[in-house]
């Protein structure tokens, strides 16, 4: 069973929030949606879980019972305790009795908040809240797990723990979709959708995206900013030439994933300039 959206377009009034974007949620794998603020990540995820109607395109998702979703706001009741939040969510999914007790105990221990079960969620740190939100979304073992920026603003240790949870869910068979602004997190995915202003500018596995880099890419050891499209990288300059001709002094280099994302964004910008010029 595969879920996802195909050629999804979402229009809010005069603004196109999503234009012709496709995303697949495949069981046992993690798919990542990468993009800056306002790129359309949340809209794509909300369309995937049915919170936003597609203006056009096809959406396919499991029954609500099979979906685990964490919005960008974490979606927790800050004026309820950890236990009360878990109890509400569990009741919504029909979990009760010893099975619930066993699962929630194991889960809270795994995310390291078993000791604060009686504390109000609003009193937990941001990282703890995120972990609890993701943990709660996993409680009913959803077939599709959709997480909107679960790691944004979270400290590196909590971030690593969150990713352990997310990878664990995929290992147990969930189709996981995660939105993030952190390019480095895309390494963890088997499929990536790169969003820019509501459009998908690159898709595929991280290696596919790296292999598909157009033009020529290289490094300039130091000195003045080289001709063409370039950006600072430590003491060196990274330079990309859409025409395959690197400026003098540049050494060709195999792009890593972050370079590939940067180049995809630059290529998209150039394409748009060209389109605007043609118009």
């Amino acid at each position: 069973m595969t879920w996802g959206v195909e050629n999804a377009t979402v229009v809010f009034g005069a603004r196109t929030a999503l234009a012709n974007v496709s995303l697949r949620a495949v069981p046992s794998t993690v798919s990542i949606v990468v993009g800056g603020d306002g790129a359309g990540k949340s809209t794509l995820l909300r369309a995937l879980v049915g919170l936003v109607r597609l203006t056009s395109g096809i959406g396919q998702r499991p029954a609500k019972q099979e979906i685990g979703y964490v919005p960008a706001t974490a979606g927790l009741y800050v004026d309820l305790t950890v236990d009360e939040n878990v109890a509400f969510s569990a009741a919504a999914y029909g979990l009760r009795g010893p099975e619930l007790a066993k699962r929630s105990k194991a889960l809270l221990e795994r995310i390291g908040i078993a000791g604060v079960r009686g504390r109000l969620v609003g009193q937990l740190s941001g990282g703890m809240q995120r972990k609890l939100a993701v943990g709660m979304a996993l409680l009913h073992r959803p077939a599709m797990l959709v997480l909107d920026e679960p790691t944004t603003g979270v400290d590196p240790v909590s971030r690593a723990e969150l990713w352990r949870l997310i990878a664990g869910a995929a290992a147990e068979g969930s189709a996981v979709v995660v939105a993030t602004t952190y390019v480095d997190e895309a390494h963890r995915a088997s499929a990536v959708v790169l969003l820019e202003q509501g459009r998908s500018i690159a898709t595929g596995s991280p290696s596919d995206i790296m292999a598909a880099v157009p033009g020529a890419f290289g490094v300039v050891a130091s000195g003045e900013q080289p001709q063409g499209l370039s950006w600072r990288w430590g003491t060196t300059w990274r330079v990309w030439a859409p025409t395959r001709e690197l400026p003098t002094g540049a050494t060709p280099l195999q792009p890593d994933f972050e370079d590939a994302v940067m180049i995809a964004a630059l290529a998209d910008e150039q394409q748009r300039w060209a389109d605007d010029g043609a118009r």
Partner: protein
Amino acid sequence: MRAMIVKEFRQLKRDRRTLALLIVLPVLLLVVFGYAARFDVSKVTTVVVGPDAATVARDLPAPFDVVEIDPAGDRSQAASRIQDGSAVVGVVTGGTQIVALLDGTQLFAVQAAESTLARMAQETRTVGSATPPVSVQILYNPNLTTAWIMIPGLTGLILLFIGTLITSLGIVRERQTGTIEQLAVMPFKPWDVIFGKIIPYLLLAALDLVAIVVIGMVLFGVPFVGNVATFAVGALLFLLVTLGMGVLVSTVSQNQGQAIQLAIMFVVPQILLSGLIFPVSSMAGGVQWIAYVLPLKYFIDISRGVMLKATPLTALWGPLVVLAGMAVVVLGLAVLRFRRDLAPSARREGAAAEPGVPEAAA
């Protein structure tokens, strides 16, 4: 400082609701205290019964507004007109003296009637007319105790407060914290969420209502002479209207501050213009209609009628039907709007609850 002032005005310009409050509230208060807020009553609806009804009715000066003259009627007929609220004063003629029955639940009207009757008696004595003396009997609230009139109205205010303000805050909090999205994705039906959200407030309001009535009876000696079931039906219908207003307010508010502002715009006019404090009958004709679009007016008619006068259900069907109509319209609209937030994609495709529901759009 100039920068600060300019910034403040820019923010105010964007904040349409505060701006509306700044403009609407003074206009409202002007209308209320200019036209509506009057304790002096210029019209007192009166029925005159008994053999001399026609003569006596002709001699009655303002503010008596004779709406019915029945020479064949008797005291019980006049009393029943007062009980069902169609008259404030019932004049019974034909005995050794004329009897004026006054509705003690209409404080200001009764005061106006009493002073006019006293003046008439004074004139009669000086002129030495043959008209028999008038005996005044105040029904339902013989001591004209203000608390007896305020507490039934206050029950309405409590329901309005819980139904509109507290409910809208409760729902907006879900929106503000983003939990409403979570609810929409959980395997709840929209109805589960909507009713799960408003039933606790309904119960709380009911509890509060009982408490206010009991405290009013124990502490202030307010009578409850009517049918509890009639009162309960009226309260339930009114509560449904206020809950609907609360949900409506929440659907157009992004945060609790906005919800409070809007709820104030719903609540304040009802406090001032529904007859809770100022009698509706003394409002100027041009603004009196406002009272008739406010649900609290109808609930006050019911609560004062049932608690103080034992007004029967048959005489209260008017306000009950109006409240029922308002409940259907307001709550219906509210539920439709709220449902749109909860199930945006379910509208076109029907239930999205079956596994793997494809969502196809043109």
